[in-house]
C-alpha cells in the first residue's frame, strides 16, 4: 500500500485532511475518557487476570486450610479462644502482596515496555493518568477481593461447622468487607509506589519494604517504644480493619484504616508529583 487515501467514506479519513485538522470531529481528552482507556488497558493484559486469580485462590485456599487445621489441631483450651473469622481470612497476609504487585505493574509495565510514551502523548497533561489508573484498578480489585473474602469466609466456616462463625457474628461482616478494603488500598499504594519508582523491581521492593520490613523493624524496637510506634506503621494500621479480637497493639479498626488510607494517598500524591515533574 502506498497511499493513505484508502478511507474516503470516513468523516475523519486521512484523505479529508487537506483542509486542515478535523477539529469539528475532535473530542477533547477528559478524565472519563482516560478512565475508559485505562479500563481497556487493564482488561487487555493477561497478567491482570493471572494476578487477580492468584489473589482469589490464595484467599480461599489459605483460609480453608488454616481454618481447618488450626481448629482440628487445637485442644479444648485453644478452641475456647479460637477466632474462626480471623482464621478464615488468613489468606489476606499473602494476597496483600499479589494485589500490591498488581498495583505496581499497572504503571511500571508501561515504563518497562515504553508504553508510557504513548500514554503521555495521548494525555500530555499527565495527572489524569494517575487518577484514572486508580479509578479503574481500585473497583476491580475491591470486587475480586470482596468476593474472594466472602467465599473464603463462608467455605471455611462450613468446614468446621457447627463451630464456625456466621456473617451475623459480631465483627464478621466488618472483617470480610474490611479485608477487601485493605487489599484494595494496598494495591493503590502499590500504584503510587510504581509511579514513584518507575521500575517493577523498585516498586515491588518498596511494597515489601513498607509492609514486612517496617513490621520487622517495629518488632525489633525496644518494648517501651513499640506501643508508640508499631500501631502507626502502615501494615498494622491497615490490618486493624479486619482484626476481630480487641488488640492493644493495634489501633481501633476504622481509625487504623483511615491512617492506612492516608499512607496510600501520600504515595499516590508523591507518585503524581513524580509523573508531573520528571521527563518521561
Amino acid at each position, binding site marked *: 500500500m502506498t497511499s493513505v487515501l484508502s478511507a474516503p467514506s470516513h468523516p475523519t479519513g486521512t484523505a479529508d485532511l487537506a483542509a486542515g485538522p478535523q477539529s469539528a470531529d475532535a473530542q477533547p481528552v477528559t478524565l472519563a*475518557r482516560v478512565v475508559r482507556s485505562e479500563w481497556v488497558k487493564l482488561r487487555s493484559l493477561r497478567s491482570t487476570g493471572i494476578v487477580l486469580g492468584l489473589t482469589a485462590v490464595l484467599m480461599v485456599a489459605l483460609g480453608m486450610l488454616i481454618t481447618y487445621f488450626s481448629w482440628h489441631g487445637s485442644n479444648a483450651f485453644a478452641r475456647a479462644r479460637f477466632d474462626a473469622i480471623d482464621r478464615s481470612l488468613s489468606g489476606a497476609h499473602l494476597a496483600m502482596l499479589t494485589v500490591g504487585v498488581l498495583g505496581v505493574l499497572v504503571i511500571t509495565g508501561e515504563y518497562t515496555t515504553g508504553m508510557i510514551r504513548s500514554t503521555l502523548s495521548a494525555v500530555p497533561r499527565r495527572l489524569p493518568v494517575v487518577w484514572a489508573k486508580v479509578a479503574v484498578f481500585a473497583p476491580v480489585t475491591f470486587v475480586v477481593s470482596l468476593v474472594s473474602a466472602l467465599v473464603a469466609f463462608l467455605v471455611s466456616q462450613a468446614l468446621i461447622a457447627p463451630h464456625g462463625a456466621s456473617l451475623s457474628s459480631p465483627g464478621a461482616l466488618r472483617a470480610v468487607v474490611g479485608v477487601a478494603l485493605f487489599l484494595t488500598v494496598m494495591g493503590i499504594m502499590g500504584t503510587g509506589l510504581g509511579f514513584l519508582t518507575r521500575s517493577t523491581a523498585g516498586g515491588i521492593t518498596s511494597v515489601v519494604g513498607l509492609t514486612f520490613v517496617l513490621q520487622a523493624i517495629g518488632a525489633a524496637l525496644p518494648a517501651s517504644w513499640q506501643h508508640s510506634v508499631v500501631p502507626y506503621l502502615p501494615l498494622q494500621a491497615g490490618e486493624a480493619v479486619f482484626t476481630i479480637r480487641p488488640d492493644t497493639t493495634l489501633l481501633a479498626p476504622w481509625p487504623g484504616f483511615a491512617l492506612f488510607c492516608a499512607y496510600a494517598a501520600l504515595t499516590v500524591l508523591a507518585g503524581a508529583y513524580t509523573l508531573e515533574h520528571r521527563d518521561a
Partner: protein
Amino acid sequence: MIQAQHLTKRYGPKTAVDDLSFAVAPGVVTGFLGPNGAGKSTTMRMVVGLDRPSSGTVTVNGKPYRDHAAPLHEVGTHLEARAAHTGRSALNHLLALAATHGIPRRRVDEVIGLVGLEEVARRRAGAFSLGMGQRLGIAAALLGDPATIILDEPVNGLDPEGILWIRGLLRDLAAQGRTVLVSSHLLNEMAVTADHVIVVGRGRLIADVSMEELVRTAAGNTVRARSPEAARLRDLLAGPGVTVTSSEPGLLRVEGVSSEQVGELAREHGIALYELVAESASLEEAFMELTSGSVEFKSHGVAWEGQRSAA
C-alpha cells in the same frame, strides 16, 4: 506547523539540544537529519512534552502540545520503536489510545488497514518484528488524523517493501497539506523523501535548507578541468572565493566557480581544454562535510564557526 525557539535541553553538564530554533512548514516532508546523538530524538520528545526544555519554547499548530484539548488530533507521533506494552495486542493498544479521545472503533480498524497489520492485529505487540512495530507506531500516529506528523527514524527495521511504503505515505501526507517531520541518520533515505532538511549536530542547528540547496551549498560544487596549459589557467582563475588544487600535472580541481565560467575563461584566453566536468557532491559527502565539525570538535570554538560559515 512546528515552531521551536531557542530550544535547549541540558542533562547535568551535557547539553543535548543547544539553542535550536526552526520552523517546520506544512505541505512538505521535512527531514530532521543528524548523526546519532545529535539531539534529534530529544528535540522531538520536547515537541510533544515528553521532555521539558531547560529553556526555550516549542509550539505545534500555535500552542504548546500540552495545551491542546485533543492532542492526538493535532499531532501524531511515533518516537520510538518500542512504545506499546509487549503484553497487549496491537488492536487493544490502539483501542486504549483511541479511548482517550473518544475516537471510534472504525477509525482504529481503518488505521490498522492503512499500515497493513490486519493479519496480526490480535497478536501481542511483544511478538512483533521491528518492522511490524514501526507500522503499529505509525498507525498510532495516524489515529487522530492529525495535521502534524512526527516520526523518529521510521524506516529502521523495515524491509524494502516497507521502505517504499513509508516513502509513499510521507509524500501523500505532505501532499494533503500536513506538516511532516521525519528524522533519520540515513542520508540517502532523506534524499528521496524529504523536500526540506533541518540538519543538527551536537544539538545545534547546522542547516535549515531545501534538500537541493543542502547538496549544492554544503559541499560546494567542484569543477574538474584538464588542460595542457593548466598552470596558466590556474593563474587566470585565481581570485577571492576561488580555490584551485591540483593532484597531478595538467589536472585542476576548482571550487567557487561554475564549469561554464571555467569554459568561457579558457575560450577567451585561447586555452585548450581536454576535459571539463562539474562534479556535484553526493548527499553523503554534503552531510559529512556539514556534520564533521559537530562530531569531531570538542568545543564550539573557531573551528565550529568555520563550519557554520562553510554552510
